[in-house]
């Protein structure tokens, strides 16, 4: 066990830290940075610009090959970057689905042309990506998806509907799973397409969420013609390709999640210092102290569990049991954190943005509501537990 950083890692950390010190966006006020979840709609332009500047400085796509605009580094540097971004309370990265999911999947399955065409623009935020998996009748049971893609010459004609598609309204491209062989067994007839969201026949209708924002959408396809050069990983091989994406999702988004959790915890502690309960500081309340300390402990545990998973990857080993528990642990901890933020505010927790009495302009209320999605998006907690029970512990299928 050797957790002391190497001189190279130390100098990478210094590089990141120095850059962040000089480049944090000024508009990124304390208000926007105070919590883990920012209403993205308020900040798209700012976040796009932020990603561009991170990219220009060489901090986007650290683990991607150099020839496609990456830096050819390891997950170790990715972890250092996330830690430093958390310390600096840096804004999140806008094209997170492109960087965390579409990109790695294209690296794994794409042709040389596809890699050259799509990867650099993902990094530079010139093309924003969304994920078109879920449908009205296919969520947890994704393999029952019904959106059809029928071959017509060198093109496929897509008809059907996706739902809960985050960022679709601002996206240029979609990772689309569609059925290309309705007669094949469920998992066998699906193809993974790289779909241009600006094609005729694509309609995006925003859906309002419990936060009041509309970050996710319905997406309708009406005779959308996709060129066959935009099939990724082979026709009818979409299930395998799509699952690879999900694996990367858990891994790559993990760093970002860890970072947002840390920022939220620091923000919560700051808020607790200022808040009072029954005439004394919340931080002096014995019960609330216990809860805050527990969150601190859980956040650290998740960090080290992540570090163990990375060690295995760096050694070229298969992911161990610790790799699969990360998302679940994060979800549970983050939701508890947001609940505690409400508890600390007491009756003030009821007030949202728009009142002078609202705590920190109602940002925590937004984050609290948004956190309910954590145990649904990216695979529900129940599905995660099925996966852990069956694939890690070897329990029989239900």
């Amino acid at each position, binding site marked *: 066990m*050797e957790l*002391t950083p190497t001189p190279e890692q130390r100098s990478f950390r210094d590089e990141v830290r120095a850059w962040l010190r000089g480049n944090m966006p000024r508009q990124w006020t304390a208000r926007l940075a105070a919590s883990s979840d920012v209403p993205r709609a308020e900040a798209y332009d700012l976040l796009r610009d932020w990603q561009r500047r991170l990219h220009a400085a060489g901090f986007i796509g650290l683990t991607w090959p150099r020839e496609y605009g990456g830096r050819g580094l390891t997950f170790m540097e990715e972890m250092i970057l996330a830690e430093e971004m958390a310390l600096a309370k840096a804004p999140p990265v806008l094209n997170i689905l492109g960087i965390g999911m579409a990109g790695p999947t294209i690296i794994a399955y794409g042709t040389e042309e596809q890699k050259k065409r799509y990867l650099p623009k993902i990094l530079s935020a010139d093309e924003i990506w969304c994920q078109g998996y879920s449908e009205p009748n296919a969520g947890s049971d994704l393999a029952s998806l019904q959106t059809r893609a029928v071959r017509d010459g060198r093109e496929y004609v897509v008809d059907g509907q996706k739902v809960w598609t985050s960022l679709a309204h601002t996206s240029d491209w979609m990772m689309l799973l569609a059925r290309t062989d309705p007669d094949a067994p469920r998992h066998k007839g699906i193809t993974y397409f790289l779909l241009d969201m600006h094609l005729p026949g694509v309609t995006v209708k925003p859906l309002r969420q419990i936060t009041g924002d509309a970050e996710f959408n319905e997406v309708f396809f009406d005779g959308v013609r996709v060129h066959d050069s935009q099939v990724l990983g082979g026709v009818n091989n979409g299930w395998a390709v799509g699952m690879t994406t999900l694996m990367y999702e858990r891994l790559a988004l993990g760093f970002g999640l860890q970072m947002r959790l840390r920022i939220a915890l620091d923000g919560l502690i700051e808020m607790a210092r200022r808040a009072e309960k029954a005439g004394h500081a919340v931080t002096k309340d014995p019960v609330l*102290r216990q809860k805050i*300390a527990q969150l*601190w402990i859980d956040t*650290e545990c998740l960090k080290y569990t992540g570090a163990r998973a990375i060690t295995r990857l760096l050694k070229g080993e298969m992911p161990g*049991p610790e790799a699969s528990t990360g998302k679940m642990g994060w979800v549970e901890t983050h939701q508890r954190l947001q609940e505690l933020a409400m508890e600390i505010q007491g009756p003030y927790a009821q007030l949202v943005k728009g009142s002078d009495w609202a705590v920190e302009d109602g940002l925590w209320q937004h984050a609290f509501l948004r956190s309910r999605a954590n145990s649904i998006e990216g695979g529900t907690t129940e599905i995660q537990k099925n996966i*852990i029970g069956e694939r890690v*512990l070897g*329990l029989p299928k239900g």
Partner: protein
Amino acid sequence: MNFGFSEEQELLRATARKFLENECPSSTVRKLMDTPEGTTPEFWAKLAEQGWLGLIFPEAYGGVGLGVVDLVVLMEEMGRVVMPGPYLSTVLLGGLALLEAGSEAQKKQWLPKIAAGETRATLALTEPNARWDAQGVTATAAATGGGAFTLSGTKLFVPDAHVADLLVVAARTGPGAVGAAAGSEDGVSLFLVPRRAPGLEVTLLPTMDQTRKLCEVKLAGVRVPADALLGVAGQGWRPLRRVLERATVALCAEMCGGAQRVLEMTTEYAKIRIAFGKPIGAYQGVKHKAADMLVEVENAKSITYYTAWAVDENAPDATLAVSMAKACVSDAYRRVAGAGIQLHGGIGFTWEHDLHLYFKRAKSSEFTFGDATHHRERVAQLINL
């Protein structure tokens, strides 16, 4: 960064696993826990032979000179079989107290004997007030001239005092000692007292976890000579804290090993026990609980491994890490052991099944060196809440 174990450490794990499966199966554990000693001279001699009684003592004192990370590997294996006997008390409490606070002569005299299995030691720290901080030490050591002291007070929850040859006793040195303000860390002194010293009375207490023997130790004017003092009079708390930190990591590792074994027993059972025509593991009420157990076990291991490294390296956050680990692992082992019984149904509630050994060990470990509530408060203090 390398958050894994070395080849040597994996070898130690394999050796310990094989040794303990052969020498300490649950039939043996049950036999030993029924005896007052909790171990046999033969078994103890074998531990010495393996080098485990001196694992973390420097070679100069007859030890193997390994670190806390290595110790963690061994402790996980001991926890896996719920090994009874005075290992924790002798090596990690009495032994480490000698190493941390003792003079060169004291270390030379006793550590090789402990490593060789000839001497057993323990630490008499806690009292009926059940506190783990310096304020809890109220037993007194009155100077009687010429450097001699007389010890008075009652120590409680002292592990394995009844089989120890030596007790390291924490007591407050009387007026005249450096900064002996009542209740503060200053003024706590450590004394090396033979169990047979006149005025020292040990009573073995009946415990829920029969694999962990606890005693009451009465000090009724126990007279000790000048060379019984370990380290500097009034300055015993600092070394003691270092002892407790390392013993706590070791205990956490032992608890992780136990929790891991409960998880394995439970998943194995969930695959073969049939109800309503299916293995119970196919039901989500069972499967999801097992997944929760895995999350608990993995997080407990992560923080324990990190803490072992931090303590070995004297990292700035080592003290914080120890408290994070003990809080996390105390809750995790208790919950995992409880879930283990639940998922076994009636058989899990029988004396015959081994689960209760783990469940009870989880409970005794929870309250050893401070429970989760105690350590969360420590964390709160250390992060300046």
